[in-house]
């Protein structure tokens, strides 16, 4: 019986945990609850994933209002995959967060942070699970608003301004999205994703529908931080507490990409997107620009978090590039990279959090000889960095393989070249860290050996291990992405 309610539990449990943590007003209890909730969410997500594998699409009517009138939670191969990704990262980051947050955030705000953390988790899971376009907006805002708070909790006052900028950009993005949704609702009279897809067929050639497509794409691009709408991201990531940024970098933009996938392929369908709007062409160009420009920018960053943030912008380019290729391998790459980049970036930010804790800064120049001081951390960064580059044997390679394959199938050689150039740039910026940490002599007054505490190191290393594991064992990441691509492209063939 409880199994029938998994979709609701996936969202409700984090939702209830957030106020509970506020009520308790204790950082320690908040952390404990948040961690348990994230594990619970992971268990639910995995169960949902397996159920979808065995019984197909799961539909859950909130309040027993039958869709399309009521809100429907609808789990298929695609969002089950996203649910697992989000809850997985949360459940690894939260055990890590205790020590990291204690060092970075004043104690009287801990309970607020954990409350917002689970609320953000709830929003992201809700965005992924719901089958109602307006409900997506609500969850998007839940995750965004809690995200702004989380970022603003950074100890550096620059975090405040970053959070403000993020708030402005994020709100504009969400508003664009909801304008598009309003137009669609006007034209179709429904908010249910599946229903809308059906009803849109009759009106897809009208101007409002096209305007809706434009609004939604631009709005989501802002949330995704697609180049050149990414300006909010580096500051936000650089300023936020390490655990927060590890979680958000791994999940927040990813879920927005998921929504974009749903809209571009699920609702509008390529028959609307492809022919004369050149939407996908533009997406491809912007993605390519992101991969090159942001990587180049990353190369010249002096702050490790900022470097990784720009790298995220570039990697988001990989994801949207696969989407824009709109063939089976491209979408597979896109979905798989959601996962692969998610775990890679989470691992990197978690490790950098350890550096911030021990060194007090993550300015690249201050990290000379760090490998002697924090050998495990540095080695972890190298491994995860290789995944970022896309070296075989790492998760990042799997994605790149499919991306290049997709581009070749499309005959887009220039895209292949861009992927190549971008990986080179990635190698270069990872390289900068390696050279500083491994090759430069440590300052004379450096502490001999001070690894990050185990509570932080173990989850971070688990994530690094996942980068390797999913470089070989691809039946989940790639298999899931293939199923998801089949769901998305199913209507197109």
């Amino acid at each position: 019986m409880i199994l029938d309610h998994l979709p609701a539990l996936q969202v409700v449990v984090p939702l209830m945990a957030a106020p509970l943590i506020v009520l308790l007003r204790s950082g320690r209890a908040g952390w404990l609850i948040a961690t348990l909730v994230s594990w619970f969410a992971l268990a639910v997500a995995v169960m949902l994933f397996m159920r979808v594998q065995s019984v197909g699409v799961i539909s859950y009517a909130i309040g027993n209002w039958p869709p399309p009138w009521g809100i429907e939670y609808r789990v298929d191969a695609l969002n089950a995959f996203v649910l697992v990704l989000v809850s997985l990262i949360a459940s690894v980051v939260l055990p890590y967060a205790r020590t990291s947050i204690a060092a970075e955030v004043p104690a009287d705000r801990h309970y607020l942070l954990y409350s917002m953390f689970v609320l953000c988790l709830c929003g992201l899971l809700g965005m992924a699970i719901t089958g109602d376009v307006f409900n997506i907006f609500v969850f998007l805002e839940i995750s965004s608003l809690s995200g702004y708070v989380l970022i603003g909790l950074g100890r550096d006052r620059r975090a405040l301004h970053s959070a403000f900028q993020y708030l402005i950009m994020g709100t504009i993005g969400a508003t664009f999205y909801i304008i598009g949704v309003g137009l669609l609702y006007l034209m179709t009279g429904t908010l249910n994703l599946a229903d809308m897809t059906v009803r849109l067929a009759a009106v897809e050639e009208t101007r409002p529908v096209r305007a809706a497509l434009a609004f939604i794409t631009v709005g989501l691009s802002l949330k995704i931080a697609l180049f050149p709408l990414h300006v909010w991201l580096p500051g936000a990531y650089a300023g936020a507490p390490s655990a927060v940024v590890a979680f958000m970098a791994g999940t927040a933009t990813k879920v927005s990409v998921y929504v974009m996938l749903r809209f571009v392929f699920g609702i509008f369908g390529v028959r609307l997107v492809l022919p004369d709007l050149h939407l996908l062409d533009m997406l491809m160009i912007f993605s390519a620009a992101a991969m090159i420009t942001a990587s180049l920018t990353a190369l010249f960053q002096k702050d490790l978090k900022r470097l990784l943030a720009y790298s995220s912008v570039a990697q988001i380019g990989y994801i949207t590039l696969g989407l824009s290729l709109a063939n089976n391998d491209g979408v597979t790459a896109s979905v798989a990279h959601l996962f692969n980049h998610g775990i890679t970036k989470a691992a990197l930010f978690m490790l950098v959090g350890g550096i911030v804790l021990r060194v007090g800064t993550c300015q690249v120049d201050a990290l000379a000889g760090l490998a002697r001081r924090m050998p495990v951390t540095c080695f972890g960064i190298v491994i995860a960095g290789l995944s970022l580059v896309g070296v075989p044997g790492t998760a990042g390679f799997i994605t790149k393989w499919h991306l290049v394959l997709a581009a070749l199938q499309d005959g887009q050689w220039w895209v292949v070249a861009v992927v190549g150039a971008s990986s080179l740039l990635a190698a270069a910026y990872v390289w900068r860290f390696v050279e500083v940490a491994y090759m430069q002599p440590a300052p004379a007054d450096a502490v001999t050996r001070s690894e990050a505490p185990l509570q932080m190191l173990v989850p971070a290393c688990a994530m690094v291990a996942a980068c390797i594991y999913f470089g070989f064992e691809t039946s989940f990441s790639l298999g899931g992405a293939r199923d998801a691509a089949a769901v998305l492209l199913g209507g197109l063939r």
Partner: protein
Amino acid sequence: MRDFFVLRVIAKLLIPFMLLFALYVQFHGDFGPGGGFQAGVMCAAAVIFYALIFGLPAARALVPDAVVESMLAVGVLIYAGVGVAGLLLGGNFLDYFVLAADPVAGQHRGIFLVEVGVLVTVSAVMLKIFYMFAGRSRNTPD
């Protein structure tokens, strides 16, 4: 200038009726959506009015910060709790029909409880925001 008689007297007169009106809106919310929201705004406005006339410390004594924050949480919990009650009673999440023997009564009950949650949350949020801003000065002094 020593006294603001007028404001004081009128506020004393008005605030109880404001609160009662808020509760009226809350309990008669079934006849249009959003009762809890408006009622929450009114409740908060009454307290804010009180704070404006009698000062922030007086208002904080009346409704302390901790209470506000707890209300915030309790409101959300009520909302979600109703949904979970639906789950526990064998329906779907937020399934009101199972909350009473008669489905229509069940729905009444469900919506009412949810609106209570909304009332508590909305008034708490507004008060929280007010408290946050009320103590702070503008940067340009008179």
